[in-house]
């Protein structure tokens, strides 16, 4: 049985392998090759070695500064999104009237695309700032606050759903046992509920971390890097390098490679760190 299955392995995994190769592996390898080349179109490239990588880190490229800004936005967004999402989820798993209605309401923003959100928030924030005779792109801190606001608004709903699922899976007898042992609400939350929902926290941290780190569409629509590229996140910086400038396509590609290593490295570390916290039920 096992033998015949092994013989058929390619038949079963083949389609997936082919799809994976076309959509991911091949473009990735071509991209890796191109990051060492100078090129205009991807089919016509000349080898230049590590030049692109050296240039990518020069201050003029603003790659490192955009990385710093991205890290800042990500750090704040991961914290606030998860804090709010968990709070909302916690409240909506109490026995309140209309929880289903509120869950839907909180989830809705997630259905709107980043570009639309970006322009919508731009209009909203400008409408507020106009009272103070200023605009969103007059100061980088407005752009920063705007991005964090937008990320929160967009991601809280989705994370909330995951937390709700996690919270509903906390066995009632554990809570009850804690109550009998005299634990107050805070102690129950801290020592029973949170350890039990650790898998949800893992997923949510992972999702928020990677999506805020890779954020592109909302950044493009909201500020497009203004003022003076101070709110340019890494993804936008790479796209701008590639498409708005002449003769630096290879540098853009090199940046993309560095970015890939960073995102995957971060996500891997984060996954490993939180995995250890999980408790078996």
């Amino acid at each position, binding site marked *: 049985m096992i033998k015949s299955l092994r013989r058929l392995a390619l038949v079963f995994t083949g389609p997936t392998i082919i799809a994976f190769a076309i959509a991911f592996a091949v473009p990735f390898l071509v991209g890796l090759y191109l990051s060492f080349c100078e090129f*205009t*179109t*991807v*089919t*016509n490239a000349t080898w230049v070695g590590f030049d692109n990588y050296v240039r990518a880190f020069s201050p*003029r490229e603003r790659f490192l500064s955009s990385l710093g800004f991205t890290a800042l936005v990500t750090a704040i967004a991961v914290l606030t999104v998860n804090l709010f999402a968990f709070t909302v989820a916690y409240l909506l798993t109490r026995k309140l009237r209309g929880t289903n209605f509120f869950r839907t309401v909180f989830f809705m923003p997630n259905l709107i695309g980043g570009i639309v959100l970006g322009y919508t928030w731009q209009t909203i924030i*400008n409408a507020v700032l*106009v009272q103070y*005779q*200023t*605009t*969103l*792109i*007059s*100061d980088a801190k407005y752009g920063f606050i705007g991005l964090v606001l937008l990320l929160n608004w967009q991601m809280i709903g989705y994370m909330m759903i995951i937390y709700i699922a996690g919270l509903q899976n906390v066995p009632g007898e554990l809570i009850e046992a804690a109550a009998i042992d005299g634990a107050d609400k805070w102690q129950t939350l801290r020592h029973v509920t949170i350890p039990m929902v650790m898998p949800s926290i893992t997923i949510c941290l992972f999702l928020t971390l990677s999506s805020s780190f890779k954020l592109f569409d909302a950044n493009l629509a909201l*500020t*497009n*890097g*203004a*003022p*003076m*590229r101070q709110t340019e996140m890494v993804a936008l910086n790479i796209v*701008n*390098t*590639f*498409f*708005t*400038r*002449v*003769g*630096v*396509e290879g540098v853009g590609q090199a940046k993309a490679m560095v970015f890939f290593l960073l995102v995957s490295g971060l996500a891997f570390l984060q996954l490993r760190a939180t995995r250890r916290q999980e408790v078996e039920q």
Partner: protein
Amino acid sequence: MKPSKRILGAVAAVAALSLMAGCGGGGSTGSSDESSGASGGQVYYLSFKPEQDAAWQAVAAQYTEQTGTPVRIVTAAQGTYEQTLKAEMAKSDAPTLFQINGPVGGAVWKDYALDLSDTDFYNALLDKSMAVEMDGNVIGVPYVVEGYGIIYNQAIMDKYFATSGAKAASVDEINTFAKLKEVTDDMQAKKDELGIKGVFAATSMKPGDAWRWDTHLANLPIFYEYRDNNVTDMAEVSFKYNKEYQQIFDLYLTNSTIDPKLTPSKAVTDSMAEFALGEAAMVQNGNWAWGQVADVAGNTVTEENIKMMPIYIGVDGEEKQSIAVGTENFFSVNSKASEADQQASIDFVNWLITSDAGKSAMVNDLGFIPPFSTFSATEQPADPLAKQVVAYMGNTDLYNVAWNFTTFPSKDFKNSFADALTQYAVGNLEWSQVVEVFVTEWAAEKQG
């Protein structure tokens, strides 16, 4: 079980088919691939302006009907031409006819651009110096000329000239920066009397909407700097006429409909709407703007009242300066396409500028002011601003301001400059810092 499975299979098949159709049909005009024309070649043109897509599709259909040569027109989305072209050129079915935006685009695409010096459409050019040449090859031929300046509303101007103490009696008297400032300052002071919110429509500094300042207005100081040095391109500039740029930019900001601090929230369409509604008397833009003005709901600007004058920035001898006429639209033929396709593309362009149907499409449907000798004086577009441009082009007393912004290093340079201008407009940057950005970014981006 059985029937439901069959239905499921059918649904899956339909879904798969529609997916495939979706991929294959994306952007094509439906010209059949089997029926190739007489020469056996076919044309694939990657077009630049989304607003002209429908007109181009009609032209293509007409050409295919007349000659049998399949013509496929694909239009890149607004502001994405370079990236679409980069992607399309990497395909085996690459565009045979594409466009470059001038010497800078030419440098990027020179390996892909055929030498056009023997073509009829190059030889029909009124001014051959307008073509893009690189390494002795003609790689881009302009197919349209455009002009920009300060567009004004004659009705509001007349109202002003009738007020007591008006600083001029007619627009003809405005032929220097000093006069422009004197008149607009006075108009701004009398804005309530004139029923306007400000002389100049909002200075649109919204990201992506600052091209009127980072490109068109910035062209003037660079034009004069090139002229002083007697060159057509420079690896480094000193931004010699930055004071002149600053004074016209300040004029736009102060005699405006809005507070300078709010300029980053305004788009070009906002400015054009203000002009169309009669809230502003002047707006800097080009002949392509008539459509935008005419389409605004509640437009109060009539065809005979919309006029254009040169942009005066305060350079010696500018009384003789005309509007800025030029182009950033050049046809290039893909040198990597098959010879039959290259010939088909050349034939297509020749047809556009020589046949009656082609000429009519160029002038009436696409609204182009053509730079070719094959067009007579009557074969020109009918819209009022294009007429103004044609009139300025025919005025030999004035010298034309060339479109030197086609030599600006890159879009990234323009974005950096626009960002600095925005911060200057809202009061966060000193002018000297803007100049520094301009000079350093120019030099750095020219290096590539």
